[in-house]
Each structure stands twice: as structure tokens, then as C-alpha cells.
């Protein structure tokens, strides 16, 4: 971020497209499985052959309602499908079936955590059901474009936020929360590489203090958290440059190019953004009742926000640790097993958000693919808790466990890493270190307290890291007084 934030205010709203994890498409019985041979999962309905009719998928409805309840939104008991008309070869009907005036999910909200530890509420305007389009392949087809319609008709919810975000970081935080939520409630796999979860960002800037919103540009189809932040920051700087050079921002759609780290105008779509929405005569209004909504509500798991609050209350975790752990349902499940087995939730949280997460990040693994399972991890923490090993040695053991060398106990045994808690043995080492460093000891006795660290360090080193640091400290204090 290199703009003057005292001078400029940034306004961001996001539209998130999230594929629903149904087995079949939203209006047809074709499979939604990813990665099939081109056009082997595009049936007559998806191809818009004459005479076909769409029939709405029950599960897509249930998942959309589930999302609405999870963001505390009003559920549309009567929702209506509309046609959004445009010509593009990845949409053979020449319209997309979506919801305009009567979406399935109305106003809701999502809280995000800011860097300063506070939380901020982001408004959700609405979320509606719609169908995804196919994919276009450019190049290597004799100057023609190849079309794969396997994705056409995959159910989506488009989640539209209020323009409540004030920085790229907030936008990323919001996107991550929504991403975590849809996976929690099991309505989407959230796979960004496969395009299951992607977003458009509406970005504008205005001089701080100005009421009226600046002209916005829409950044299309961003499919990674890193790119969202970069694309938005880039766009903010571009708009400020335009205004400071005396120009005007034009309302347009821009595409982010990750390779060049720039956004560029998509002129082709600029012309005639006139979608002429009207109710789809092929589909009747979708009517549900309160009992149905209640039934869906009962199926909701504990949500990340609720879990976070519970961890803070029950385990006395910091808001940061609680937020990190509850961001993923799988990580939270792992943590709960570790905490229950080792009997120390704070120690578990420190290790799960620290060593374990670092290791997973480095190896680019999800928690479910961790080389050390929750039971084994708890076994390691138990040995810290009962003073068999120090935290420092535990890191070495964790590394060995990750390499598949066995359980914590086996490694402690085979490598002789058991902590020395025998006072007389430690005292002998303390005496030796003092004897070898008479000048420093005299200085310590004369009041140079910072030398205490030096002595403890030397004793720890002499013990190969195996002495109990607390005991070393106590013994040093004793020596000093005697």
C-alpha cells in the first residue's frame, strides 16, 4: 500500500461466486464433477437444445438457505428466477438463469477481525442462486475458440457485500471468512484453483471526508486471496494517479493480470451492459415455508464465529488464536482432540498455531494431510506438560515425528532426550559452568543481572538442552545468594 491514506479513502464491495457442492447441475441431471473430458457432462438442457426445460435442484436450494442462515440473513420464502440476457458462446441459451428482484437470501452480515484485534461488521446485501457458464479455450484451434460446457449449469450462489470495506486487507479478510464459512457448512469445496470460489471487486476512491462515492471500477474473476489484495491495491493506486493527474475515473470492467501485476480495461464487455432481465417463464416461483427454514437451521453445525467465542470462553484463548484455529473446521477438530488429550488448551493452541501451522504452510499441506496426527501431537505436548522434555527439545522431536521417526515417546527414548530433572546432576553442571567463568560470576554477584541469562544458557548448552530450564534458574539463584 503506497497511497496516502490520510488523504484518500478507499471503498470496496465484493461479489463472491461460490459453486455449490451438489452432485448434479442446478437445472439438469448432468454431473458437476470437476475435471471430466470436455463436454461429456453437458446434457441437452445445458446445451440449450430446443424443447428442453430446466427443473430446479432441491439440494441447491437447501444449500443456499443454509448459507443465508449462517450469515444471519432474511430468507426469501418466495424467490424468483430471472433471465439475464447476453450473447457469449460459453452460455448457449444466450441468457443466464439468475435471481434479480427476489433472491433466496436477503440482508445479512459477516464480522471480520482487523489487524488491531478489533472486529468489524461487513454487510451482506444479498445472495442469489444462478448457473455457472462454460469455459472458453483460446489459441491453437485454427483461429477459433474452443468451448467446453461441462461447467455450464453448475449451481452458484453470488454473495454480494455492501461497500463496507476500506482497504484491500479488509477485503481479503472478508473473503477468507466467507471462504471458511462455506466450507464449514459444507455447501462448497471452496477450491479456488478449480474455480469453485472466485470474486469480483468493486473499487472506488474518494478524498477523505467526501460523502459522495467515487466512480467505481469492477475487477473481474480474481481467484486467489493473494491476487485480491494485489489487484485491489493496484487499482487503488491507478485511480488515485488518474485523479491526481486531473483525469476522471470511468466506470468500467477491468481484468487483473497477475503476470504483469496490473489491471487492464475489458473493452469488449463495456458496450451495452444492458441485460434486459425478466422473470424466466420456464421456471415457477420457488416457495418455501418457515418449517423448512427451521429444518435447515437445525442442520447447521457450530459456526466459526460461535466456535471462536466458545474457545475464548472455555479455553481462555486469545481472539487471535481462537480466530486462526476456528478458520478451518478441520483444524478446529484437530485442536480439540489435542487439547482434550494433553489436557492443556493454551499449550495446544500455541503449538497448533505455531509449530504445526508453520510446518503445514511450508509443506503446503492441509491439516487433514498432516504428517503428525492429532493423537501423536497430543502425545508430544503431554511430555512438555509433565516436564519430560523442554519446549526447545520438543521442537526437535516434532521435526523427527514429522520425518516419520516414530512417536514422541519413542524418539525421546531412542535419542536420549529425556529432560534432566535430577537436582544434583543439574547442580554439578551449574557448579562447573560457574567454575569455568569466574569473572562473569563475580560480575553477576556485583549486580550485573543480565548475566543471569548467560549462565542459564551455558548450563543448558552443557546439558545438551536437556536440563529443566526452571530448575537451572532456581539453582543459579541459590548459588548467587550463597
Amino acid at each position, binding site marked *: 500500500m503506497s497511497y496516502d491514506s490520510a488523504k484518500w479513502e478507499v471503498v470496496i464491495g465484493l461479489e463472491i461466486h461460490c459453486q455449490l457442492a451438489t452432485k*448434479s447441475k442446478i437445472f439438469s*441431471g448432468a454431473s458437476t464433477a470437476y475435471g471430466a473430458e*470436455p463436454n461429456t457432462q453437458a446434457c*441437452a438442457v445445458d446445451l440449450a437444445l430446443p424443447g428442453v426445460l430446466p*427443473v430446479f435442484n432441491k439440494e441447491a436450494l437447501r444449500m443456499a438457505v443454509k448459507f443465508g442462515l449462517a450469515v444471519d440473513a432474511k430468507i426469501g420464502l418466495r424467490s424468483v428466477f430471472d433471465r439475464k440476457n447476453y450473447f457469449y458462446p460459453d452460455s448457449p441459451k444466450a441468457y443466464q438463469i439468475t435471481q434479480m428482484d427476489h433472491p433466496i437470501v436477503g440482508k445479512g452480515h459477516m464480522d471480520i477481525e482487523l489487524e488491531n484485534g478489533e472486529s468489524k461488521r461487513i454487510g451482506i446485501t444479498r445472495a442469489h442462486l444462478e448457473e455457472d457458464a462454460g469455459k472458453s479455450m483460446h489459441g491453437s484451434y485454427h483461429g477459433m475458440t474452443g468451448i467446453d460446457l461441462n461447467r455450464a449449469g453448475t449451481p452458484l450462489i453470488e454473495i454480494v457485500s455492501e461497500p463496507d470495506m476500506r482497504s484491500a486487507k479488509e477485503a481479503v479478510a472478508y473473503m477468507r471468512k466467507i471462504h471458511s464459512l462455506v466450507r464449514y457448512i459444507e455447501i462448497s469445496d471452496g477450491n479456488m484453483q478449480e474455480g469453485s470460489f472466485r470474486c469480483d471487486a468493486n473499487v472506488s476512491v474518494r478524498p477523505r471526508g467526501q460523502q459522495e462515492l467515487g466512480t467505481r471500477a469492477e475487477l473481474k474473476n480474481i481467484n486467489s486471496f493473494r491476487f485480491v489484495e494485489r489487484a485491489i491495491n493496484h487499482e487503488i493506486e491507478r485511480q488515485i494517479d488518474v485523479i491526481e493527474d486531473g483525469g476522471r475515473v470511468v466506470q468500467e470492467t477491468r481484468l487483473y493480470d497477475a503476470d504483469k501485476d496490473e489491471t487492464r480495461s*475489458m473493452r469488449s464487455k463495456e458496450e451495452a451492459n444492458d441485460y434486459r432481465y425478466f422473470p424466466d417463464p420456464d421456471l415457477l416461483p*420457488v416457495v418455501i415455508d418457515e418449517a423448512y427454514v427451521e429444518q435447515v437451521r437445525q442442520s447447521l453445525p457450530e459456526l466459526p464465529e460461535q466456535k471462536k467465542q466458545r474457545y475464548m470462553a472455555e479455553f481462555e484463548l486469545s481472539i487471535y488464536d481462537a480466530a486462526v484455529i476456528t478458520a478451518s473446521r478441520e483444524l478446529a477438530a484437530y485442536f480439540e482432540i489435542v487439547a482434550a488429550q494433553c489436557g492443556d488448551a493454551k499449550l495446544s493452541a500455541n503449538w497448533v498455531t505455531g509449530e504445526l501451522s508453520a510446518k503445514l504452510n511450508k509443506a503446503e499441506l492441509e491439516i487433514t494431510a498432516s504428517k503428525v496426527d492429532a493423537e501423536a501431537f497430543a502425545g508430544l505436548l503431554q511430555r512438555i506438560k509433565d516436564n519430560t522434555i523442554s519446549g526447545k527439545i520438543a521442537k526437535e522431536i516434532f521435526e523427527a515425528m514429522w520425518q516419520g521417526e516414530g512417536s514422541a515417546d519413542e524418539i525421546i527414548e531412542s535419542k536420549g532426550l529425556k529432560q534432566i530433572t535430577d537436582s544434583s546432576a543439574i547442580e554439578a553442571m551449574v557448579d562447573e559452568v560457574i567454575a569455568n567463568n569466574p569473572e562473569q560470576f563475580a560480575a553477576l554477584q556485583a549486580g550485573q543481572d543480565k548475566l543471569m541469562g548467560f549462565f542459564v544458557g551455558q548450563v543448558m548448552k552443557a546439558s545438551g538442552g536437556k536440563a529443566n530450564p526452571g530448575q537451572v534458574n532456581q539453582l543459579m539463584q541459590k548459588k548467587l545468594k550463597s
Partner: protein
Amino acid sequence: MSLDADEVKKIAYLARLKIEEADIPGYVSNLSDILDLVEQMNAVDTAGVTPMSHPLDAVQRLREDVVTEGNQRELFQAIAPKTEDGLYLVPQVIE
């Protein structure tokens, strides 16, 4: 309410319809007449009438989420003008 020739051209473009220049005055007058009729209907007081989204007084039936359609690519592509590697080929779309 009446349309002008440019609006008619725009509507035709949006619908990707090719219209002859000579026919435009006819479309202008016909389409304007339709809009005038709608305007007359707008005069009716509809306060308290629920907007209708479908002429049938029925609600949508739902489908179970099961895969019922198998691969019929060969059959469908037999009528396509051009295909390659399983893809439908269309005139180049420039982004």
C-alpha cells in the same frame, strides 16, 4: 412514449438481429405503438396487487440431486458445425 431510430438499432443489436435500414421506420412505429399500449395499462391503479412473476398459479417443483444424464457427447456433437478435441469450435472470441 415513442422510440427513435437509434433506439431501435440498439434493441436490434442487443438481440443480434440484422435489420434493413429501409424497415427501420416501420419498426419505430410498431414498437412505439406497443409501448403506448403498455403506457395505457400503466394508468390502471395496481396498488395492493401482488406483482405476478408467472401466469400459472403454481410453485416450482424440485428435482432430487441425482445424476441422471450420461455422456452423449458424440450424439450432440454430430450436429455441431465444428468440433475438435471434444470442444465445440466457434468464431474467435476476443477478450
